[in-house]
């Protein structure tokens, strides 16, 4: 038998979002620092009790009663512009992003998830027992093949190594690459997962309910004062905050904040931060940084938020994960920024 039997025809893809690809980038020199920030972004630390306990969205669990015959095969254009065909309803789905894991369980496809990516802030609990086939270090292609995966949902912007995506596709496994830089894109991602997994109706019910809740929550703080807010992703060595035009930025604005933003490097100098003089500091890194730590930092004591004691930890996982709990993230931000508002 010819060992080159697996040689596949060339495939091409064009980047639908290519112009924005650098929007969410982390300009770092040290891989260690990158690791730290990525860990922070994916909710590495167990954030200590946020000020409010998020309630799961009601619709998230409401499975539609009558499932019409799913319209397979389906063709999906993923966030990198690749057209992906899913031949039949996938029975062994591999989720390579924490957001996709949450989404699949929320839309009632959880029983068909065969494996997942390592999740340092795991959710939902039903996914706990699933085999882990990917970590920060890489993707275990052999395991995915051995599980006979028939759909893989991967993360864009390098979250899932592009080489792994290409290899899975060359083995004939459909791979959908998703990433979100806005609330709209996050909701579109949930819909795409629904379409690919044969739960399009449940996904669309979920995203409709989420959009309604986003609108309702945003309306609550529409007329509130907008405090100048510094959202701290990490400040262990360099100071990292939210880039302009990112999902973080949009959520903070929806929550009634006037966020201090930076460029695609995610970095901000202490000089700029002190000059901006934020009225509120939100600690996305609250898992390992307390308000007292912030107040004790040299040269931070003159910042208005430190003087007034307006430093609050928030649950970074809810805010950064473009999954079904994103509304809870907005709720957590509003609770921290506008405690007077009745949610």
């Amino acid at each position, binding site marked *: *038998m010819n*060992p*080159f*039997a*697996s*040689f*596949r025809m*060339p*495939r*091409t*893809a*064009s*980047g639908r979002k*290519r112009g924005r*690809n*650098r929007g*969410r*980038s*982390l*300009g*770092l*020199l040290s*891989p260690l620092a*990158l690791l730290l920030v990525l860990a922070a972004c994916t909710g590495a630390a167990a954030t200590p009790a946020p000020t409010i306990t998020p309630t799961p969205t009601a619709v998230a669990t409401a499975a539609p009663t009558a499932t019409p015959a799913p319209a397979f095969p389906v063709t999906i254009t993923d966030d*990198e*512009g*690749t057209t992906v065909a899913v031949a039949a309803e996938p029975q062994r789905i591999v989720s390579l992003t924490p957001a996709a894991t949450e989404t699949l369980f929320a839309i009632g496809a959880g029983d068909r998830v065969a494996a997942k990516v390592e999740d340092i802030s795991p959710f939902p609990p039903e996914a706990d027992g699933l085999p882990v086939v990917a970590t920060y*270090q*890489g993707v*275990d*292609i*052999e*395991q995915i*093949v*051995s*599980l*006979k995966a028939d759909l893989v949902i991967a993360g864009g*912007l*390098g*979250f899932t*190594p*592009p*080489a*792994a995506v*290409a*290899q899975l596709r*060359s*083995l004939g496994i459909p791979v959908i690459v998703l990433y979100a830089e806005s609330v709209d894109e996050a909701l579109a991602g949930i819909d795409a997962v629904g379409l690919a997994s044969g739960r399009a109706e449940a996904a669309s019910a979920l995203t409709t309910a989420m959009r309604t809740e986003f609108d309702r929550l945003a309306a609550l703080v529409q007329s509130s004062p907008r405090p100048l807010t510094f959202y701290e992703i990490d400040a262990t060595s360099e100071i990292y905050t939210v880039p302009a035009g990112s999902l973080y930025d949009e959520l903070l604005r929806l929550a009634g904040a006037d966020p201090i933003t930076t460029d*695609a*490097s995610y970095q901000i100098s202490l000089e700029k931060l002190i000059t901006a003089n934020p009225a509120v500091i939100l600690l996305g890194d609250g898992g390992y940084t307390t308000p007292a730590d912030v107040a004790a930092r040299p040269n931070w004591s003159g910042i208005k938020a430190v003087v007034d004691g307006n430093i609050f930890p928030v649950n970074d996982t809810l805010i950064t994960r473009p999954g079904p709990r994103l509304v809870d993230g907005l709720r957590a931000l509003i609770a921290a920024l506008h405690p007077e508002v009745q949610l």
Partner: protein
Amino acid sequence: MVAASGLLLLAIALVAGIAAGSVAIAPTDTLGILARRVLGLELAPTWTVAAETIVMDLRLPRVLTAMVVGGGLAVAGAAFQGLLRNPLADPYVLGTASGAALGAAIAVLIPVRALILQFGLLHALAFIGALGAVFVVYRLSRVGSSAPMTSLLLTGYAVSSLLAAGLAMAMYLSGTGLRQIFAYLLGGFEAATWGRLAVAAPLILVAGLVILLRARSLNGMLLGEEAAAHLGIDVRRERALLLTMASLATAAAVAISGLIGFVGLVAPHVVRLLVGPNARLVLPLAALLGASLMVGADLLARLLGEIPVGVVTAVVGAPFFLALLRRAHSGYEL
């Protein structure tokens, strides 16, 4: 004797490399799959389709890629060491590594994901960067019509430093792509496919073969260029040819597997310590040793949970090399 043990080592590495991985497949099944698919024997499958895919489409191309890359780097390293008469020379000495790294980093910065024959922009730019760097080094180091060896080495160092600065800047600008660049710098075979091997292997094998056939010239040049000329060797032509072939093999290797250090430096030295400096023996044995070392290192890297193979080659290779050096009391020269 040494050649036989070299072949045996390679065979053991090949079998072990295919038998082991993150998914356990029974050795009998592995042999059965290989017998059926490679030798064409009519066997009734006792294994799953997934196992066949893992052995044939994941492990076999991966092991063969490691073999070809390891062998290619070792031959290229031996050629560079002989040509430059410098024991510290390795396949990357004339800027190949920094050129490839800069090319790969630029490819990561350009958001084009098109794959042609399973090759992306990263592979193409890494290959072009590696060859481009050597070409620039060669042209810059020319004094009159010839390029003196010292000038070549120093120019290589200078150009590498410049390219490294470009790489640092590209990494600073790369954002989330940094992880991808970093993975390229560490090197590895986890992304090996038949398609990539089918393009890179002929380049490496042909270049390696040409170098092997020029063993006589390399032996002559070890005596010095004048002595070589007296032996009837067209020094300028032979040197240009050997440099081109060694650079071509290196560029093809780094394009598909990233920058894996140490094998290209150490394998030729180990062989010289064992059999002496005759290039006729050193080149083929270095290829065998380099191939076995690389497959072994990749296997170890896989068993330790996909750690970068470059780390393994250095951690295993350095102490082994040191021990050999200490045992070679007689003093060691190229």
